[in-house]
């Protein structure tokens, strides 16, 4: 296994900032927007985005939640482990809001499908958009695409994308790990 870094500081931080500014450009003060990060790894991204957006907009009351999708997965019986759920925290009504789902990597699209399903249990949003840090192109198994993409990468199926966050892994870095043939 060899890890090939594809996004490191300072480009990593700039990418997050660019996505924030893009969002503000599209949506203004984010009054109707709710940010919803997907557990387990998307929440590092969503928390970073929230902090960055507070700095940019000066609005420290951005609606923010975190969603665990374990019980909505379509593959829970095929996985070796049944990961115990992280805590979902959505203490606002989703009804009528413009929800931005946030995850670190978009790959097959199945996690996002489960996320959409889980989100609907909290009401009927006016719209849902998707923001990801990394979009693994040409590997989708469902017709799901992201509205905001940090970096699009082309990968083989045997490869893995690893996203590390300062908060949990001590470094901001995205790398491709590839099998040594």
């Amino acid at each position: 296994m060899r890890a090939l870094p594809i996004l490191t500081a300072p480009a990593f931080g700039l990418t997050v900032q660019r996505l924030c500014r893009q969002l503000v450009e599209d949506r203004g003060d984010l009054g109707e927007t709710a940010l919803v990060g997907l557990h387990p790894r998307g929440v590092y991204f969503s928390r970073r985005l929230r902090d960055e957006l507070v700095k940019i907009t000066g609005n420290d009351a951005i609606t923010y939640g975190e969603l665990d999708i374990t019980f909505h997965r379509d593959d829970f019986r095929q996985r070796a482990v049944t990961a115990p759920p992280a805590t979902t925290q959505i203490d606002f009504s989703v009804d009528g809001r413009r929800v931005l789902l946030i995850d670190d990597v978009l790959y097959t699209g199945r996690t996002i499908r489960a996320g959409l399903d889980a989100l609907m249990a909290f009401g009927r949003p006016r719209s849902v958009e998707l923001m990801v840090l990394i979009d693994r192109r040409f590997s989708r198994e469902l017709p799901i695409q992201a509205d905001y993409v940090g970096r699009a990468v082309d990968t083989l199926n045997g490869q893995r994308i690893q996203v590390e966050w300062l908060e949990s892994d001590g470094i901001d870095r995205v790398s491709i790990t590839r099998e040594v043939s």
Partner: protein
Amino acid sequence: MSDTLGTQHLLGIDDLSAGDIDLILRTADGFKEVLARPMRKVPSLRDITVANIFFENSTRTRLSFELAEKRLSADVVNFSASSSSTKKGETLLDTVNNILAMKVDLVVMRHQDPGAAVFLAKHTKARVINAGDGAHEHPTQALLDAYSIREKFGKVAGVKVAIVGDILHSRVAWSNVRCLQKLGAEVMLCGPVTLIPKHAAELGVRISHDLDAALRWCDVANMLRIQMERQGDGPAYFPSLREYTMLFGLDRKRYESLGKEVVLMHPGPINRGVEISSDMADSGASIILQQVENGVAVRMAVLYLLAAGMDRTGIS
């Protein structure tokens, strides 16, 4: 920390390690959150069919299981002995095999005979959850009691729990003792000499025949129901209900004389004015209704984790 159960069936608390119990309680936390959502339903078990087979009366447990199954999107069939062929002489195995021939993946069974669930698990391919077998075990009740204690105290280890009343006939008591001990709680059994079997001491629990002493010792009192239906025509194990209440019933006067807080639990159904007075059952010290609420989340966790071990085609 493991993420899968070490058992295919839940026949008794003995099937579970402390790690398994911890996994069930942690998973139940997730389901408790689901039950607080505007839409209290997840699709996890939508390709699973569950049969609730009750050979003995039950309101709470059966309703709780059925709700748990429906909240997980399982298909549910119900069967009760009073409306069935068992009245016509069909054996347990035949009854169950007929139900399983209709492609049921999971069976929740209550039966009056101890060991019925074990027997069923040996002879069928479906996963089995014991919802009470005679005076043997009622594992999900013990799990929800442990969950409620954990919720109240933030932990189970070190908490002092007194189980009071009809220990002799109580599957809840036995499952609770096993479960609480695995989680590191201290357990005391309290009741009339006639209602605490002699072998109880071998379980490593304290025994008391004095309710006031037990209450002074404990953090939690689990007040069991006197099972009059198992005593024949009238009280057979004590002179009268009135005497039982005087010695082992909890009322406000007795509670206030303690000068400390004790959390009150009851597995239901309550005989108000016998083992616990009405005002104490409804008081701030009581977590009886929280137990019922937690029961659905805990049963969802058990169903979910057992189903996780099945392959996509149903039974592995």
